[in-house]
């Protein structure tokens, strides 16, 4: 187990270097960001040269990359164009996005698994077809449509919540954005759980458990559901990274100044330290979430062991 974890952690090093390099090159390929700082006015060459020098933009790309990586290992993620260190941006943005992701994951896991379980147990009945149609509708509606529509209904039409989230962004205000963010994944979780439950319903161990005379709730929860959760957990694990990155749309709609907002600003202003820094952390989150999922397999299914 320990050796397995260490091996997986070591694998992250090349992935980390490769992804930062790729993102660095891509942001660089967008062109020189300094001209945009001057708006519709032609940059005065001396000032532009001074800005480029201070941002280390007057060096070839590979030197910029080496310089950037050297700074990162000293704990310096660079500075955004408005003079704020990227680390400061991270410390304000990440807590928001993590809170939003927690809401989304809880919503998709709890509601998705419950819906999936019920429709799986009542295969072919009205409940099953109803959930099927519902998930189809949810999957086919893009996040920005559901976001704006729910925001208008809850925020303006019924006046139940504020349409935008305040800078402090407590959990209570993140409920609606969290649901919007979770909607599509929720549909997938429901479908996955249902299929898995239906499949395992006829498994030998379930029949044995019923034959042993175990109470129904114990059969369903302990034997059927637990064994059906493996594909679901895999999905939710990989989804954590996707939710954080995909929050760019949801955060924009609900005016949450989290990771998505900072990434959007960084891309718009072509500020490579912001973009590379945030995406790097996203990559690490993604890798760690996947490692945790793999370790969870062993917990869920005793037949799986890591060496």
């Amino acid at each position, binding site marked *: 187990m320990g050796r397995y974890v260490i091996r997986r952690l070591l694998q992250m090093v090349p992935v980390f270097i490769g992804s930062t390099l790729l993102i660095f090159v891509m942001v660089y390929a967008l062109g020189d960001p300094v001209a945009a700082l001057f708006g519709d006015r032609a940059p005065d060459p001396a000032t532009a040269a001074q800005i480029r020098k201070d941002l280390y933009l007057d060096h070839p790309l590979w030197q910029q990359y080496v310089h950037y990586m050297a700074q990162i290992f000293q704990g310096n993620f660079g500075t955004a164009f408005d003079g704020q260190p990227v680390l400061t941006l991270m410390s304000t943005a990440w807590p928001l996005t993590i809170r939003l992701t927690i809401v989304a994951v809880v919503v998709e896991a709890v509601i998705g698994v419950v819906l999936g379980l019920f429709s799986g147990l009542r295969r072919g009945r009205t409940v099953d077809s109803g959930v099927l149609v519902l998930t189809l509708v949810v999957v086919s509606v893009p996040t920005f449509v559901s976001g704006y529509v729910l925001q208008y209904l809850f925020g303006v039409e019924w*006046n139940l919540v504020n349409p935008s989230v305040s800078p402090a962004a407590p959990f209570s205000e993140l409920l609606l954005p969290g649901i919007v963010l979770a909607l599509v994944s929720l549909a997938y979780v429901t479908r996955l759980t249902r299929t898995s439950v239906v499949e395992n319903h006829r498994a030998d161990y379930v029949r044995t458990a019923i034959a042993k005379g175990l109470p129904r709730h114990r059969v369903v929860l302990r034997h059927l559901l637990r064994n059906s959760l493996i594909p679901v957990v895999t999905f939710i694990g990989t989804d954590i990274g996707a939710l954080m990155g995909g929050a760019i749309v949801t955060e924009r709609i609900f005016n949450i100044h989290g990771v998505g907002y900072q990434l959007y600003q960084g891309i718009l202003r072509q500020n490579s330290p912001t973009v590379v820094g945030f995406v790097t952390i996203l990559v690490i989150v993604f890798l760690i979430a996947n490692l945790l999922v793999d370790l969870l397999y062993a917990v869920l299914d005793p037949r799986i062991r890591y060496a």
Partner: protein
Amino acid sequence: MRSGTRVKWAVCAAAVAVAATACGGGGGDGGGVNGIVRASWGDPQNPLEPANTNEVQGGKVLDMIFRGLKKYDPRTGAAENWLAKSITTTDQQDFTITLKPGWKFSNGEPVTAHSFVDAWNYGAALKNKQVNASFFSYIDGYDQVHPDSGNPTATTMSGLKVKDDDTFTVRLTQKFSTWPDTLGYSAFYPLPRSFFTDHAGWLSKPVGDGPYKVSSYTKGSLMALRTWHGYQGTDKARNGGVDLRVYTDNNTAYTDLQAGNLDLVDDIPATQLKNVKRDLGSRYINQPAGIIQTISFPMYDPKWTGANSDKLRQGISMAIDRASITKRIFDGTRTPASDWTSPVLGARGGFKEGLCGGVCAFDPAQARKLIKEGGGLPGGRMQIAYNADTGSHKEWIDAVCNSVNNVLGNDNACVGAPVGTFADFRNQITAKSETQPFRAGWQMDYPLIQDFLQPLYYTGGSSNDSHWSDKDFDSLVNQANAQSDSAQAVTAFQNAERILAAQVPAIPLWYQNGNAGYASNLSNVALNQFSVPVYNEITVH
């Protein structure tokens, strides 16, 4: 809706509570303090230094916390002496500036001649890399502190001299009679000592001499401005303060306004323009602003500058149906242009409707004739370049091209050419690698006809993207700048503008309006010529 009403009451109570604490904390004369205005905002691009702010979002904060030598009247646009008691000159080149006594920064420090001279020297110095440094280029000695290449040979401009605490003199490099009227621009604001001694501290909580002071600033999300009761000017704030909230998406700000979660939105999303009158009624503002949109030609490219190319460019201009496009695409938030300035200047300031003449009127037959005489479109087709990342330019560029295509009876004559990002777009233009006409937008820095002509069309002008050059135009601008009489200066500028009508280095398309919407608890909401709300006049009830 009971719940809605309750929420609103809670908000009002909170606003009153905040206002009360602000009032108590300020320790000022108190009095007519009422509520706080909650207004939409965008994250400023650069640090909030006066000479480093060249976009509207940072500019609106500076205009609230600072006052300069001059101030532009929010209704007429006229430059009035504000901190300046007098600005005098005998030769249009050497100016003596005297300050009104008694003005202070909100930290108690008096505003003196040094506050201005130090601020201007800071703004011009190359090492401070201020994006508005070129505004000081008219001052003698700028070349020494900000050379085009190499290291600066001086740290202060020789053209600035402090006489005493209330007086300083300025020597310009050339005659420039309307120069004092440019001094209302934010780059020329004075700065307190703390700006230089504790720069980081100042940036996290800027201190100025205007009607508001910064109460708290959370970068990227919220700035709370509160009325400064020690303010000496006559334009005191008539509300308790303004909370500027950063919105990434103007649709969200609009929804917040509808839900009663925000009081003032100064950027109505394009998708809501059709509903805004129904939603807000008389609380929707749509009025001219000092912004003109043009299509500029690459005058450095021989394809567009051959013999008779004047006729070609005139013909293209006449093939654009401005009236239909402004109505259909912009829902009346643009006005077809008939000169190269803006209606906000007023007739006295140099705006002249119809100066462009037939060249800016839609005339398909004449357009076909002129384009043919001009040798036809180079290679039989043209593109219009624009940036695709912001501002939703695609719609109107396509409409302009369709108009040209209809006139020429050729579906492929004109197409839009999107460039991914604004930065890339600007790079192509400044590097002269753009070989097709491109869109250009100009927002004035100060309400003067000079600002619409000299930076854009004068040889080597700071925003002369076309790189157009004409001796007669330059000499007329020089004449205008040397005129001591403003009416004669305006006449000379308009004569220069007539050369633009003959040669058309840029096609004027339309004047842009400023838009805003506000909640029913506000009154006296208006926009100034820069399409920025006049915050200090807003009252809350």
